[in-house]
C-alpha cells in the first residue's frame, strides 16, 4: 500500500515539474516512478521513514502553526539585530523530545532549528541540546509547548 502511494506521489511530482502532457512523456514519467519505487524496495529504503504518508493529515494542521511560530520568532530576532545595543544572551539548554518515532524526534529538532533564535546543536536519544540567542528562547522551549504540539502532530496518524 505504501509502495503504491509512493509511486503515486513520485508520478504527481514528475507531472508538476514536467508541464508537458504528451502520451510519450506521461508514460515515461509513470515508468520512472515505478522503477524508482522498485529500486527503493531493492535497497530497502521504501519504509515508513522514507515516505511517512500517515503524517500527511497531521502536517496539514501542524505546518500553519509552525509557520506562525517562525514568523513570530523571526520578527523577534529582526528586532534584536536592529536594536542599537544588540541585546543578546546566548544560552545552551537541553530539552526532552517526547515523540515515539525517529521521524517525530527529527521533526521536533528541525522545527527548533527552523525557528530563528534557537538551533538544535546535538541529539542524544531523546535529549536535544539547544543553543538559543536569548535566554527567553531557551526558557520557552523548556516549557515544552512545541514538544507537545509535535507529539500531537505525530499522534494524529
Amino acid at each position, binding site marked *: 500500500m505504501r509502495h503504491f502511494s509512493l509511486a503515486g506521489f513520485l508520478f504527481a511530482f514528475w507531472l*508538476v*515539474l514536467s*508541464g508537458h502532457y504528451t502520451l510519450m512523456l506521461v508514460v515515461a514519467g509513470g515508468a520512472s516512478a515505478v522503477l524508482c519505487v522498485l529500486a527503493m524496495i531493492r535497497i530497502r529504503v521504501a519504509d515508513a521513514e522514507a515516505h511517512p504518508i500517515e503524517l500527511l493529515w497531521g502536517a496539514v494542521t501542524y505546518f500553519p502553526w509552525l*509557520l506562525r511560530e*517562525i*514568523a513570530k520568532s*523571526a*520578527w523577534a*530576532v*529582526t528586532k*534584536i*539585530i*536592529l536594536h542599537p545595543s*544588540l541585546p*543578546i*544572551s*546566548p*544560552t*545552551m*539548554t*537541553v*530539552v*526532552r523530545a517526547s515523540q515515539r518515532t525517529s521521524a517525530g524526534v527529527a521533526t521536533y*529538532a*528541525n*522545527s527548533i*532549528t*527552523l*525557528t*530563528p*533564535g*534557537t*538551533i*538544535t*546543536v*546535538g541529539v542524544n536519544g531523546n*535529549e536535544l*541540546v539547544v*543553543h538559543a*540567542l536569548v*535566554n527567553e528562547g*531557551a526558557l520557552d522551549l*523548556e516549557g515544552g509547548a512545541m514538544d507537545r504540539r509535535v507529539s500531537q502532530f505525530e499522534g494524529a496518524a
Partner: protein
Amino acid sequence: MTAAVEIASWVLILLGSFFTLVGAFGLVRMPEVFTRMHAASVIDTLGVGVLILGMCLQAGLGLVTLKLVFLLALFFFTGPVVTHALAQACLHQGINPHLAEDRRSIARQQSAESDGRQP
C-alpha cells in the same frame, strides 16, 4: 493582473528583501559563529518565505507557483539539516559558543524531577 495584486506582490518582494538585508546585517554584527547562525536563519525563513510569496502573486495560479512552493518546501527541509551540520562541525572542531547562561545541567535536573512526580 489587477493593480491590487501587483501592489501586494511588490510589497511582499520588498519586505522579503528587507528581511534578507537584516539577516545579512545581523550576520556581520553578531559576535561569534553560533549567534551569526541565528541571524542567518532570518534570511532562510522569513526572507525567502515572503519573497517567494510575492513571486507566487507575480506568477498567478499555475505550474510556476506550484514549483515556487516546492522551492520553499526544499528550503524548509534542507535548511535545518545544513544549520545542524554546521553547528555540529563547529562543536567537533572545539569551537565553543560564548554563553551568557548555561542551563544544560539545570534543565536536565528539572526534567528528571518532573519525571519523578509523574507515576
